[in-house]
């Protein structure tokens, strides 16, 4: 185990940064990162988040419940994350305490696209738990970051 919380966070960001750069060099970072998150989430949802056993049907409430359960299990500090939305889209503001901020800042400073792990994770959570197809988008990287999840137009009505 890393000796400090900061060490654990640096290790996390080191791996994520490396994975994104490697997937970019192979040509499809969106596919690679979505697959990583989906596989991790399927395992993680069933084992590490007992507080998230029954996801609410409403996507905004499901995102809130997922963030709360992640917070309660010690994975993230969800206090600086605010959601609003309806059945068709969910918007969120994510503050300074995001564990991925260090990696995103490096990407931003390098002039590369910032890949929001939190937005993708919420979209996958909605897909896994509600079978609802939402497209994640980072609208703004900053303090706070602004993300939107919009119901996909791909699915049949």
């Amino acid at each position, binding site marked *: 185990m890393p000796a400090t919380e900061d060490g654990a966070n640096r290790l996390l960001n080191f791996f994520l940064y490396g994975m994104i750069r490697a997937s970019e060099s192979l040509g499809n970072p969106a*596919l690679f990162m*979505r697959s990583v998150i989906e596989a991790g989430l399927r395992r993680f949802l069933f084992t590490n988040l007992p507080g998230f056993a029954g996801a609410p049907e409403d996507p905004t409430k499901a995102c809130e419940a997922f963030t709360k359960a992640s917070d309660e299990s010690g994975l993230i500090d969800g206090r600086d994350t605010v959601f609003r939305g309806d059945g068709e889209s969910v918007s969120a503001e994510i503050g300074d305490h995001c564990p991925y901020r260090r990696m995103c800042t490096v990407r931003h400073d390098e002039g590369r696209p910032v890949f929001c792990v939190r937005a993708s994770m919420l979209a996958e959570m909605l897909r896994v738990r509600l079978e609802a197809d939402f497209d994640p988008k980072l609208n703004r990287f900053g303090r706070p970051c602004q993300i939107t999840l919009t119901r996909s137009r791909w699915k049949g009505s």
Partner: protein
Amino acid sequence: MTDVWTRIEETIDELSHVTDIKSCAVVRRDGLVVTHTLPDGVDPKIVAAMTAAIVGTSEMATIQLAQGRFVRAIVESDHGKLLSLGAGEEALLVALVYDDANLGLVLMALERAAKQVERILQDAGNG
């Protein structure tokens, strides 16, 4: 108005009637299935992810080797060929064809279907 998914499904259905095409699918570039005519026993999720990976890597290879625009990827094997190509900025089209297929005719049908999918998505984006 008919929704995007139904219109894409109609396109795929039409394509699957082309002689020499065993089955086909439209997938998203991030590896999710949109619709398909793959046979039972084939996992469409895996096919979608593999198609996205094949096209993504092929596109990157053409860029790195300075070969211009990527057109299509063809994977040849003992019992057939797998053809993958872009269908606009968001989607890919993949088809499994017989090993002795008339590739010229199949490619014409595939390119027509890919353009149709692209148009459907553009219409939906503008609507």
